[in-house]
């Protein structure tokens, strides 16, 4: 492929020599028997099946459980790179949290003219019920996933903020377990930061956000929509690893001003709910009245300080891509510093000038829906046919404020293992960030998603992407 040299290859320099981060790994790799590696590759899949690390897909017939393809070549980040990323992520996440508080209180950022009021007014994730209310400990975004892309040795960009309910952390953990089971000798040879205590950190971080009425040992529960949800495995996995109950809406009810779960010995109060249920289904009395997934009255208890909901309702505002385009201003406004991690250049199609530019350059841009996620409803200009571009143009003209556009990024590549040996594929990175009143805690590692198709830039698992173990090297 002619374009290969245009992309930053994380393993190899343009002259073919191995970059420092991968030196130890490649030293090991070159000693391996390729037949053995092929067998290991097949074993990895069996291992995921046995462990039941699957996501559910709804077909016409019945729900099917699928595996997210796993690639056994690790994505490696040096200690120095990670330190820099950590500082940038901390800055961004603390800004996000301050931003949420401001949005639901005085809206200083709007008063200061740094963010248009219309962006809040038109934001579907904005919840009037949260106005004037401060969640326990002042924490809104307890768990954040920051999606990063890389384009060069020192060029990292934030592609998306996931402040609503970021998923995928179970893959970070299970990919590591699988790698350690397959190649224990590698872990003796290369010094790698551990990720396995993430569940403990999560439990600790959530407990630190418990409401005042909680006892010494706050009761934490994971709220899942149920076994048919696509991420059910992760919900059960995290509850199990944290030693927390895994509850469904039907297990909970409001009892004496607290949210309580039905245990075998009666109703017992829950202090912190790590919910994996969307805002609109949380409380049928407040939001979607048809929701069977939530708990009637939970919002009243929440506003009275009787329970912590993580993440706080209404944090989805930050996931909006129009808000994203203001993140440099937001970071500066709340931290007084220039952002350490840059945004990807973004055109808001709501602006007339930007729209004109976007329409003139559709073939080169990536256009996304403001509220979209999962790689759906987007146009990747260079990978699209004329017909697809024209169809998208019509949608864009029809409702410009529903879209933003970004340049097609030269995402870095990392090799994957194929039948013919190593081959470069595009990757991104989602580190997981925990926020408690006095701490922002980032587990060294994250979820690396990889586009398995040659040349493809779309890494979403719903679009055929896979995952890799992500290593942060120790100094």
């Amino acid at each position: 492929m002619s374009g290969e040299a245009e992309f930053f290859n994380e393993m190899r320099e343009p002259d073919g020599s191995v970059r420092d981060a991968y030196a130890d790994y490649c030293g090991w790799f070159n000693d391996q028997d390729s037949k053995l590696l092929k067998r290991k590759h097949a074993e990895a899949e069996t291992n995921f099946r046995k462990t039941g690390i699957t996501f559910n897909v709804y077909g016409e017939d019945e729900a099917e459980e699928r595996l997210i393809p796993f690639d056994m070549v690790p994505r490696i980040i040096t200690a120095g790179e990670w330190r820099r990323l950590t500082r940038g992520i901390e800055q961004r996440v603390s800004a996000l949290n301050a931003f949420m508080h401001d949005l639901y209180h005085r809206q200083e950022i709007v008063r200061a003219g740094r963010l248009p009021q219309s962006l809040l007014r038109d934001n579907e994730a904005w919840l009037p019920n949260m106005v004037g209310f401060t969640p326990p400990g002042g924490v809104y975004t307890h768990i954040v996933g920051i999606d990063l892309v890389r384009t060069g040795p020192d060029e990292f960009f934030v592609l998306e903020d996931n402040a609503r309910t970021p998923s995928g952390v179970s893959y970070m953990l299970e990919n590591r377990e699988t790698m350690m089971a397959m190649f224990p000798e590698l872990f003796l040879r290369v010094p790698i930061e551990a990720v396995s205590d993430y569940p403990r950190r999560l439990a600790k971080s959530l407990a630190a956000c418990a409401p005042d009425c909680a006892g010494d040992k706050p009761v934490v529960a994971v709220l899942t929509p149920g076994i048919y949800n696509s991420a059910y495995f992760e919900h059960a996995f995290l509850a199990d690893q944290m030693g927390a109950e895994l509850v469904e809406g039907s297990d909970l009810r409001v009892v004496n001003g607290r949210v309580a779960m039905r245990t075998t010995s009666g109703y017992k109060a829950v202090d912190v709910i790590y919910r994996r249920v969307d805002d609109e289904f949380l409380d049928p009395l407040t939001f979607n009245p048809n929701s069977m997934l939530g708990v009637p009255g939970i919002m009243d208890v929440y506003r009275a300080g009787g329970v912590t909901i993580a993440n706080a309702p209404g944090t989805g505002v930050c996931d909006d891509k129009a808000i994203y385009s203001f993140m440099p201003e937001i970071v500066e406004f709340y931290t007084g510093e220039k952002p350490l991690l840059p945004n990807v250049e973004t055109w808001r199609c709501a602006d007339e000038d930007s729209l004109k530019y976007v329409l003139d350059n559709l073939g080169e841009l990536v256009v996304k829906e403001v509220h979209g996620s999962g790689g759906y409803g987007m146009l990747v200009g260079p990978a699209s046919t004329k017909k697809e571009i024209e169809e998208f143009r019509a949608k864009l003209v029809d409702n410009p404020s529903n879209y933003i556009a970004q340049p097609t990024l030269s995402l870095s590549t990392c090799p994957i293992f194929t039948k013919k040996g190593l081959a470069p594929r595009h990757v991104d990175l989602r580190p997981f960030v925990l926020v408690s009143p006095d701490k922002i805690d980032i587990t060294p590692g994250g979820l690396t998603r990889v586009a398995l198709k040659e040349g493809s830039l779309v890494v979403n698992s719903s679009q055929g992407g896979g995952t890799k173990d992500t290593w942060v090297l120790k100094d």
Partner: protein
Amino acid sequence: MLGRTANGLFWMFRYLERAENTARLIDAGLRMALTRDLVTAEEEWRSVIATAGQRAGYEAKHGTYTGNQTWNYMLREKANPSSVLSMFSLVRQNARLARNAISGELWEAINENWLVIEDQLSKPVGENRVLDTVATIRRAGTLAHGALAGSMLRDEGYHFARAGTFIERADSIARILDIKYYLLLPSLSYVGSSLDTGQWDQVLRSVSGDRAYRWLNAGQIDARGICEFLILDESFPRSLAFCYCALRDDLAALARLHGSEGHSNMLMRDADTRLTELTIDDIFDQGLHEFLVEFTANNASIADAIANDYRFLA
């Protein structure tokens, strides 16, 4: 523990037991069919289906009884809600539901076996594969119980899992005996009449008790002995007395863990006392069938009481 999770564990092990018992019935039926002429074999398969409580469903689909049709219906028929395939899929579904209440080893024992069983039952099972398939299903049960015993905390979850196992097992033994009770009656009224030992062998095999029985009775097969063995022998893990001994302990442990006794403990105590005080003569005097009907109804009441006491449902 959540009531819903307790319910999941209880039913996970009930369904597992049911799948395993179905496999045992097929095994015993196959053994009979191999040693009989075709006409008798057809009778045998009819009796196997009846014992499994699947007669109505089977006859709605098939007009005749052949071995192949019968075991495929019991193992993998889509329209049969009690097929091993349906049962095992429910076992796994309940295991997923109670995933954070069971050990990783138990989950993997269930999940790995589900993958194998689903694969083995994806195609019709022929004569050459049926024994293997039945063995796989039994092994799945053995592995799950091994993982339960070897890796689970002795908390309430463990006792709910065991309670489900023994409620289901007792129900299954009682049903097998009840279906075959008419075979016993003549031999009781006519002492010394020739017993159809093949039939009895089948009953014993369907609870994997043939070897144990022979070991205890030195080759003597008589109706009274077999009934006494399956109802009252506390040393045989598939006797009613054994099941209730175990169930009594599990329910007592649950009451201890919850700090109070419930209706289930009361029913259990009564049932247990009745069973301990009975002799095989009392049972035959009362009528074996009458005894079994009462036992089964009472067993179901205990199961209901457990669900109530521990808030299985909202």
